[in-house]
């Protein structure tokens, strides 16, 4: 099992911290492992990006991938 680098932003940082290393083969596993460790994450609104590309469906991961949890934007 590989360790995947997971970044978080905005209000999610207060829940799961800026960065986590999570053992996972796909994005669904990333999310479920994070929710186990940080129950407050469940029910929060966010989308996932892999290597800065938005992903809406479960996606297999590679060792070097960077997953990001992005809550609703509020720039501008």
């Amino acid at each position, binding site marked *: 099992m590989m360790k995947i680098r997971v*970044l978080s*932003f*905005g*209000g999610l940082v207060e829940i799961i911290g800026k960065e986590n290393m999570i053992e996972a083969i796909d994005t669904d596993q990333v999310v479920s492992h994070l929710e186990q460790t940080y129950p407050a994450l469940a029910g929060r609104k966010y989308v996932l*990006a892999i290597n*800065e590309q938005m992903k809406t469906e479960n996606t297999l991961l590679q060792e070097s991938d960077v997953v*990001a949890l*992005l*809550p*609703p*934007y*509020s*720039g*501008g």
Partner: protein
Amino acid sequence: MTSKPKNIFVQGAISPALVAESLEKHATEQNIGAHEIFLGQVRADEIDGRKVAAIQYTSYESMALTQMEEIRERILSTYSLACMHVYHSLGTVRAGQLCLFVFASSRHRNEAQQACRDVVELIKKELPIWGEEIFEDNSSQWKTNAFK
């Protein structure tokens, strides 16, 4: 994309002087007939009796810059512009200070006006940037962009 995306981020508030400088730089381009400028300013909103003192901006910077390049290409292929510049604050911007500066120039006004409008819309919708409202009592709350 092969070239490094252009940086749009400014630490802290955007200075009104930057607007004047941007205009001065384009005084030599003699085929520009119109400049359209949008500036976002932090409002001292009152939410549940607490007043916003500042917004603290953070971003997934590398992703934001890549997204901004895509927006830029989309806009430049849609509108005939002489130039387009975007600046967004990171860190703390106090109420009354500027946090966003969009600048579009074109031969005729329609192109610059539409482009500026679209860019502001796309920045708010597509750039991974987050603003945390800091209230005068030091409590805080994460903003969410509403699209009306």
